[in-house]
C-alpha cells in the first residue's frame, strides 16, 4: 500500500523544508477557502478602488511577471540575476517598435520580443552559466549595463534618450485594453498563470532535477541530470518572462525609453523575490505588491523609498532569507503548533 503523503516528520524541521517539497498533496480545505477568498478579493478590487490605485496594481502585476523569472532562478537555481531589465527592455522595445513604427498587431511585437529574448538568453547563457555564484551574478549585472549602452546607441530602433513614443494600446481579438481596469484583468491572470506554471514545474520530474542539481550537483550528474541544460532552460524562462512583462509595459504606458531599463529596474525585479520569498513561487505576489505599493505610501517623503528598498533587501538577506512569505509561513506554523499543543496530541 502506497503511504499517503502525510507528514511523519517533526514539525520544526519539516516546516522549514516543506516549502521545498513536491506538491503531490491535495490542498486542505482551509487552503482552498483562503484561495477562494483571495480570488474573490482579486476580482472585485478594480471595482472598489480608485483609478490611481488600480494603476499601481497593474504595475505590481508587471513586477510579478518579471520578478517571477528572477525568483525562479534564485529559488530553484541558486542564481542571482541582476540583468532582468535587459530582457524587459527587449520586450518593451520590440513591442514599441513593431506596433508604433511598423504598425504591426500587438501579438507580433510581443512574440518577437519573447523570441529575441529567448535567443539572446540561449546565446549568452551558455558561456556565462558555467560561471559560479559571484562571477555569474556580476556577469548578469554587466549584461544589463551592456544592454543599456546598446539601447542608447541603437537609436534607429530605440530612439536613444528620446525613446519610442506613441505605442498604441494593446488590442487583442477585438478587445482594446485602454484603461487600468482592463489591463488589470489582463496582467494579473497572466501573473497567476506564470506562478501556477512554476508551481507545476517544481512538482514535476524537471523540478525534482532542479532541486537535485542545487543540492548536490555531482550526484545529480551521476543521475544523468544535465545541469548545464537545466540552468540554461530556467535562464531562458526568466528572460522570456522579462520580455513579456516589458511588452505589456510598453502597451500600458504608451512610451518607452532607456530610463525604464537600467540597473535600478534589474535590482527592483530582484527585490521582488528576495523580499517576497523565493522558495515558493507565490512569494513573488507579496514581493510585487511590496515593491509597487511602498513607494506610493512613502511618496510624501521624496525619494526615500529607494533607501528603504535597499534596507529591506539587506534586512531580508540577513533576517528572513525566505522573505515575507517565509516569515508569514513561520508565524502561522508557530501559531498552529501553539494551538496544537494546548489541545493535546492530534495523532495517536
Amino acid at each position, binding site marked *: 500500500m502506497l503511504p499517503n503523503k502525510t507528514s511523519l516528520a517533526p514539525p520544526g524541521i519539516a516546516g522549514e523544508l516543506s516549502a*521545498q*517539497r513536491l506538491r503531490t498533496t491535495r490542498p486542505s480545505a482551509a487552503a482552498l477557502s483562503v484561495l477562494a477568498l483571495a480570488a474573490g478579493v482579486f476580482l472585485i478590487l478594480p471595482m472598489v478602488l480608485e483609478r490611481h490605485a488600480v494603476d499601481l496594481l497593474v504595475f505590481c502585476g508587471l513586477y510579478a511577471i518579471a520578478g517571477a523569472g528572477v525568483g525562479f532562478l534564485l529559488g530553484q537555481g541558486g542564481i542571482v540575476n541582476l540583468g532582468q531589465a535587459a530582457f524587459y527592455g527587449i520586450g518593451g522595445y520590440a513591442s514599441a517598435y513593431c506596433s508604433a513604427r511598423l504598425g504591426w498587431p500587438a501579438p507580433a511585437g510581443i512574440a518577437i520580443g519573447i523570441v529575441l529574448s529567448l535567443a539572446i538568453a540561449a546565446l549568452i547563457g551558455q558561456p556565462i552559466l558555467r560561471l559560479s555564484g559571484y562571477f555569474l551574478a556580476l556577469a548578469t549585472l554587466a549584461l544589463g549595463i551592456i544592454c543599456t549602452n546598446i539601447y542608447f546607441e541603437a537609436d534607429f530602433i530605440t530612439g536613444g534618450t528620446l525613446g519610442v513614443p506613441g505605442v498604441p494600446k494593446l488590442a487583442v481579438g477585438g478587445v482594446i485594453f485602454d484603461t487600468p481596469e482592463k489591463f488589470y484583468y489582463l496582467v494579473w491572470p497572466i501573473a497567476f498563470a506564470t506562478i501556477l506554471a*512554476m508551481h507545476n514545474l517544481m512538482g514535476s*520530474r*524537471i523540478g*525534482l532535477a532542479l532541486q537535485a542539481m542545487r543540492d548536490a550537483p555531482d550526484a545529480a550528474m551521476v543521475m*544523468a541530470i544535465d545541469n548545464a541544460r537545466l540552468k540554461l532552460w530556467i535562464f531562458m524562462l526568466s528572460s522570456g518572462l522579462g520580455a513579456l512583462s516589458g511588452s505589456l509595459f510598453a502597451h500600458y504606458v504608451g512610451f518607452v525609453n532607456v530610463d525604464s531599463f537600467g540597473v535600478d529596474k534589474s535590482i527592483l525585479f530582484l527585490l521582488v523575490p528576495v523580499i517576497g520569498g523565493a522558495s515558493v513561487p507565490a512569494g513573488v505576489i507579496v514581493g510585487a505588491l511590496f515593491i509597487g505599493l511602498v513607494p506610493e505610501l512613502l511618496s510624501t517623503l521624496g525619494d526615500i523609498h529607494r533607501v528603504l528598498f535597499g534596507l529591506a533587501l539587506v534586512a531580508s538577506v540577513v533576517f528572513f532569507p525566505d522573505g515575507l512569505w517565509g516569515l508569514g509561513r513561520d508565524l502561522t506554523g508557530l501559531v498552529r503548533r501553539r494551538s496544537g499543543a494546548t489541545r493535546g496530541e492530534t495523532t495517536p
Partner: protein
Amino acid sequence: MNLASRVAASAPDAPLLELKTIAHRFGGFQVLHDVSFAVPAVGITGLMGPNGSGKTTLFNIISGFLMPMSGAVLFDGRNIRAESVRRRSLDGLVRTFQTPKVFERLTVAENVMVGAFKAGRSGFFAGLAGLPAARREMTEMRARAYETAQRFDLGPVFDHPSPLLTAGQRRLLELARAYQGQPRLLMLDEPSSGLTTTEIEVLITKLKLLAEEGIAILLVSHDMELMGVAQAIHVLNFGRIIASGTMAEVQEDAAVREAYLGV
C-alpha cells in the same frame, strides 16, 4: 596471467569494464602508472590500497570525474575515457560517494525518485503546463521508488526529510537511489565509512542481493570484512596494481603484506 584476467576470461561474456594502461599525473607527481585490470559483468570486484595509492584518482577516472592522461577505459568494449559523467550514467555506470551525497532538501522518497530521472520522459514544457501525463509519470515514479525504498529498509521513513536519517540509512538511501538508475556497473567509494558494525552487516547483505540480481559491483574500501564479499580483488599501491586474486590469495601475497604492514 593474473587471477583477475582468469576470472574475466572464464566469464561467459567479455568484461564489462576494462582499464588499459591507465596513467595519470598531478603536477609533477605520477599518481598512476600503467594500471590495467578488468571487471566482469557479474559479481563483486574489489579495489584496495593504502592511503595515497591512487584509489581515489582511479575511481574518479572510471566514473568520469577525471580524464586520464593516457590509457583507455573500456565499458562494453567502447572507450569512454572522454565521456561525461552523465553519459556514463546513461550507459549504466553509476557511482556513490565516500560521504553520501544525499539531496538534503528532498525527502527520502524524492531522493529515490531522482534516481529514476533518466528513465522519465516528461520535459520542461510538460512540467510547466502540469500535463496529466507528467503527473501520472510522477505518481508512477513515486510508486516504484517506494518498492525500492522497501528493499533497502527505508519504507518506514519514506516521506521523512533526508537530513533526519542515520548514517547507515543515508548510505542505503544513496544505494537505493543509484539502484533506481538501473546500473549495469555500480561503483561504491568507501561505502562503509561512518557506519556501525551492524550497519555494515546490513550493507553487505544488500550488496549481495544486488550482485545476485546481475548488477556488477566495483567496490573500493579499507574495510577487510566488507571486502570479503568480493570475488576478485585488485590491490593498488603507489599507483600500480601489485596483486590480484581472491581475498585469501591477496592476503597471503608478499607484496600486499609489505604495502600494508611494512613486513
